Every structure is written in C-alpha cells, then in structure tokens.
C-alpha cells in the first residue's frame, strides 16, 4: 500500500526518533527508489556496484507498476539530469578548495583556463540543465556557467583564509538586487485565477485581493536573471494579465506587442530589428522615441497581404 499519509511519518514520532539517531525506511520509499533506479540517470549518478547493492534491497515494486497509469505532458526534453561534472565539482565544494576552470562561450569559443571558487550547483527546472555559480578569482566577478560549457575543472589549493575571503566576496555579489513589479489579473479573467497563479507559482510573490474592485494583484519580487523568465510568463498568459507597476516590464511588454504586430504587418511598424527575447536590455528612455518611429511608419494594405501570405 502506498499511502503517503502513513503513521510512521508522523511529526511527533519523527522528532522523538531524531534524538535517538534511529531512522526507518518503508516499502514505499524503497519502491520509489526502485523506479528511480530504472531511470538512465541512475547509471550516471551511481557506481554499478552501488546500484547492484541497492537493487538487492528494493524488491517491492508496487509503485513501478502503478506508474503505468501516469503520463507527463508539455515537459521539456530531459537532456540532462545528472551531469558527469557534478561529482568532481561537489568534491571541490566539499573540500572547500579552489579550482582551475576552462569554459566555452555560448557561441563556442574556447576561453583560457581561469582560477576560481565554486559557489553553488543549480538545476533549472525550465531549461532542464545544470549551472555552476562561481567566483572568478582573477576578475573578481561572479559567473553562471552551464555545465555543458565547461571543458575542464581541476581542484587547486587555496589557503583556508583566502577561501573564506573569496567566499564572502562571492556571497555579497550573489545577493543580487531584487526588483518588484505588480501584475493585475484582468477582471474578466478572474475565473482563470488558479491557472494564472500556477503560472507564477515558481516566483516569490504575494497576491492581494481588492474586495471592492474584485481585482487580484500579484506582487512579484525577482532578480535580474529571473526577469527574463517573468517576461516569458507574462507573454505566456497574454491578455489575462497586465503589468501595473514595474517600468521595465511595462516597457518590454509594449515592445513585444509592437514588434509582434510588426511581424504580422499590422500598424505599420518597421521590420523586426531585434527579437523580443533579446537579452540585451534597451534603455528605458528609448521607449518613447521608438513609439514615435512606430506611428510614422504606416504600411499599406498590399504590404500587409504580402506578409500574411503563408510561405511554402
């Protein structure tokens, strides 16, 4: 029986057991592990010897049978769950040591090896990929590098004092400034509230409900690097939501709408210069200038028809 509400998991019992150092393992946990050992990632994460030992202990197979009834949809391709560099980098992190790291750039150019301190290994549930956050000792800056762009990592000795100094410096740099924005759910879409909240549920947020106006407002807090994903979610939800506070997001949404309409030859905007997902951040101030340009360039109907024609 797989009942996740088992008495043995009770909080009082587990806190009493905590003091004794005794722990319990149930069939359902072993059964879950068994189904995970069947995943190809197991062979990348564990030695064959370990897998063999574990398989001896996980004979219960109820979960694996039941999982036939479960299907996953709209997920990303799972290109990478366990990366071969996780284990050597974890070792350097555990030893509190420095490293010499060589990476490729996004475009594939090979950089010179750099001295650094690994800070944290992070998996993005969106990109389905591992990242190393690290401190570059020579440029004194922090970097987020995809593990697939790392060509080699070697442990290098640093003194305890130097390690700690650099970690403190890195920590300060990693405390990225946080931005705030308020997103309003357009009232006619209130019935879709849970869907909308689900879309934002991976962000730091607080929802406020205005009883009088029957309006939901989502207060979001996010870092620079999360901003791009917030934008994707806003576009994803389309007309259901509107940014009411947060100039940068407002500006980007206005630009998205303008450029998207230009693709369809509507409202006569210029042909696409930069794509929307362009990560280079245009200055706030240029928005008005671009708007002026937009209104002065009306395209004629023939042009619209030409662009609407479906190629091939």
């Amino acid at each position, binding site marked *: 029986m797989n009942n996740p509400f088992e008495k043995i998991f009770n909080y009082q019992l587990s806190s009493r057991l905590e003091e004794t150092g005794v722990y319990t393992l149930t069939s359902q946990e072993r059964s879950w592990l068994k189904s995970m050992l069947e995943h190809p990632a197991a062979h990348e994460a564990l030695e064959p010897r370990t897998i063999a030992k574990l398989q001896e202990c996980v004979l219960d197979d109820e979960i694996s049978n039941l999982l036939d009834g479960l299907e996953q949809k709209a997920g990303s391709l799972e290109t990478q769950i366990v990366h071969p560099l996780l284990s050597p980098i974890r070792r350097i992190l555990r030893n509190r040591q420095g490293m010499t790291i060589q990476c490729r750039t996004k475009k594939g150019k090979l950089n010179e090896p750099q001295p650094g301190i690994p800070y944290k290994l992070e998996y993005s549930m969106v990109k389905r990929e591992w990242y190393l956050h690290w401190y570059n000792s020579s440029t004194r800056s922090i970097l987020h590098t995809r593990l697939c762009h790392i060509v080699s990592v070697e442990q290098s000795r640093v003194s305890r004092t130097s390690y700690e100094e650099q970690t403190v410096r890195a920590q300060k740099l990693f405390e990225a400034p946080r931005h705030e924005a308020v997103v309003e759910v357009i009232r006619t879409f209130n019935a879709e509230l849970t869907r909308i909240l689900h879309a934002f549920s*991976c962000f730091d947020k607080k929802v406020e409900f205005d009883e009088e106006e029957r309006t939901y407002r989502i207060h979001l807090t996010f870092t620079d690097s999360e901003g791009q994903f917030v934008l994707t979610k806003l576009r994803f939800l389309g007309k259901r939501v509107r940014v009411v506070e947060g100039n940068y997001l407002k500006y980007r949404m206005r630009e998205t709408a303008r450029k998207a309409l230009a693709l*369809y030859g509507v409202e006569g905007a210029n042909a696409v210069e930069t794509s929307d*997902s362009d990560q280079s951040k245009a200055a706030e101030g240029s928005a008005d200038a671009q708007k002026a340009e937009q209104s002065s360039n009306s395209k004629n109907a023939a042009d619209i028809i030409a662009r609407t024609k479906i190629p091939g």
Partner: protein
Amino acid sequence: MAKESFDKEIQFLRLLALTGGGYDRQQFAGRLGISVHTFDKTVRKLREISGDADFADLFRYGYADSAEPVLLFLYRAKSMKESESRRLPLILTALKGTPQTAAELLDACCERLPLDAAMPDEKTIRSDLRYLEEIGVVRREPGGRPYRYVLNNDLTDCLSQKELIDLYEFVDIMANTQIPSVQGYLLRDNLKKALKSAVPEEEWDDGLLEPFSYKYHYDARILDEAHLYTLLRTIHLRKRISFQYFSPKNRKSYSAKETNPLFGRETEVRRESTLPLKVVYDHQYGRWYLIGAAAKGRFVKFRMEGMIDIAEEQEAPDEYFALKKQQLDEQMRHSWLIDTGETVTVRAKFYRPRGQADFIAERVRLQGQWGQIVEENEDFFIYEIQVNGVTEIRPWLRGFGSSCEVLAPADLRQSFIDEWKEIGDYYE
C-alpha cells in the same frame, strides 16, 4: 472511525502556496468554504506539525535557494496517540541491530517508559510489530516461534560512506526533478539521518545535506500526490470511483460537511462518477489531471486539485477498460496537454536572435514536443506540429513574444494579431 482526511489542509496549503499568504483570515476561510474558527484551528494544527512560526514567510525568498520541499510537512500530519509516539521510538531503537521477540520488546518498553506512563501489554506490542512489518520498516527473522524482528535498514547498512553520499545526492536530484516525488523527499529525510550517523563528527559538514539547488519549482505540485496513489490504484484495478468535485472556476475549493443542519449550505456540491483511465501531469503549469470515461463512454477530464472525498466503486469489465484506454491513448497522441479535440496543423515561424547564440531554436527543440522544424535558414526556421486544438499550444507560442509568428491556421494567426493589439493597448 472515519478515515482521517487532509482535504481541508491540502486546499489551504495550495491557496497559501499560490498566493504567498496574501489573503487575510476571512478571505482564506471564505475561499475554503469553512468558518474562520475552523480556519484558525486548521492553521494551528499545521503550524504545530511544521514547527514553523510564520506561514506567510514559508514561500518568500527561500524558494530559489533551498532544495527543502516546504510543503512536505503535510505528509507528517497523520495523527498518532501520545502513548504510541512514546512507545514506537523505544521499540524501533531496541530493534536496531539486534533481533528481538515481542516479549523482549515489552520488557524494553516497560523499563524505559516513565513510571506514570500507561504500560503496554504484549498484545499491543504484537500489533505494533504487525504494523511495522506491513509497511516494511521491520523484518521478521527466519526461524520458528517466538518470532524475532529486526529493523530493516539494509538499504543504507549495505553502503559505504561514499556510496551513501552518492545515494543521497541521487535521491535529492530525482526527488526534485522527477514525478512523483513525495516518497523521494521522505527517503531523502531518512538518508539525512543515515548520513549523520555514518559521517564522523569531525568530518561533518552541513553542506552535505543541501548539495544542490533547484530553480523555478512548482511547490504546490506535491500536494496532489496525496490522491495520486489512490487514483493510480483504481486505474490498476479498473475500478470506478465517485468523488466530490470543485471545478477550479468555482471560487470555493472545499466545503465543510453538513454535520449541523442549521448550517446547511444552499448550493449542493455534485458527486461525480467516472472510470479513471489516466493521470496526467502538466509541466507547463505544474498541475495534475485525471482523465476518465463517463457513464456513456465519453472522456471526462478533472483537475486533481478539485477532487475530494474519493470513493472506490465497482470494477469495470476488462475488455471495456482496455477499449477505452486504447481509444484515449489514440486520441491523446496529439494532445499538447489533454485536449482530445480535432487535430490541426500549426505552423509557426521563429526568428533567430541576431549576433548571439540561438537560444530560440534551443528552446523550441527543448519544449516543442513532437513538432518538427520543416524549413530553416540563418534568419528563421519554420516549426510544424499536428496538435489537438490550438488552445493548449497557444500560450507556449505566445511566450516567444515577437520571436514567433504564427503562420497557420489562419484563425490562430488572426487571434494572435488581435491579442497583441489588445496587449499593446494595455501599455499605451
């Protein structure tokens, strides 16, 4: 005694996770369909279980930096008698390493329980052992009566320290990136204890417990695993079910039972009935669906979060179940999520970013499911997919903003134009 249900707690935690605790008590209680008094009681209970002082903070700031599942404590809510929560640790401690008989365990309990505590009898110990054996926590040693029992921790006992660390990290990754995950998180908690006893104190490092972090997680997804196995089992056994259903469009997500006729509600919640065929997890929103066959064979879809008070009904005939399952698989072959409507061909043109790595193509390859790139050059590529209806794929395409131009079908193209106009107007 009625089976302990956690529906109210689950609905509350879901609201909390989704809103970040932004509602006041009245608003929470109203949406849960319970009184403010019941709401306060629920919160008190959950607070005691979680050991956390402030729920509102549970979902703030920490979300990106911790691999700790904030809602896991729900699964520790099963109640237990005080006497039991004192006796079981004594039994489990005694069973670690040395096999014991029920009589020996009784002695151990009587010796260690405080004098004023109620002393168990051998029958109680036997029933404890039966329970522990049933859930796989203890094992009966080979040999005749009197039976000897021992704690079954072979899984961790057979591993070296290095292997244990490897296993912990593997479980951490799989629980966080795969579905289902509740048992994985529970196992992870136990492996933490195993690590603590395996690693000598002078070598201990708290970093061992949080090896990795995970970004952009849907915290609330583990709440639906409460009903997952009940549903998967009914699919396995081909049993029909009946349940109370709160559509997500309904403002209330729970409602108190009418134990007091004075407080009878005006609107009756309907009981639905279906033959479960498939559970679907939607990665796009982090939500769960149950798809079943209704009485006349039509396919019906339910959001799992709206289902409460699920009861098993009679079994469906083998052939009927197999037929419906096969029809559903066939109809869902082209579902972006769960749409079983008519299949259409969607064509979209994606523009490559200039002067930088092509993250657009990468994202389409990663998330575009079974769609194909049918034409490409250095400026753009054309993506084509056969999909049931356009509703479910639409948000994904729109998420690309002005890097994506819908080419076909024509009405989808037109609706994108209309929607971008509308969005543009929001920011004029």
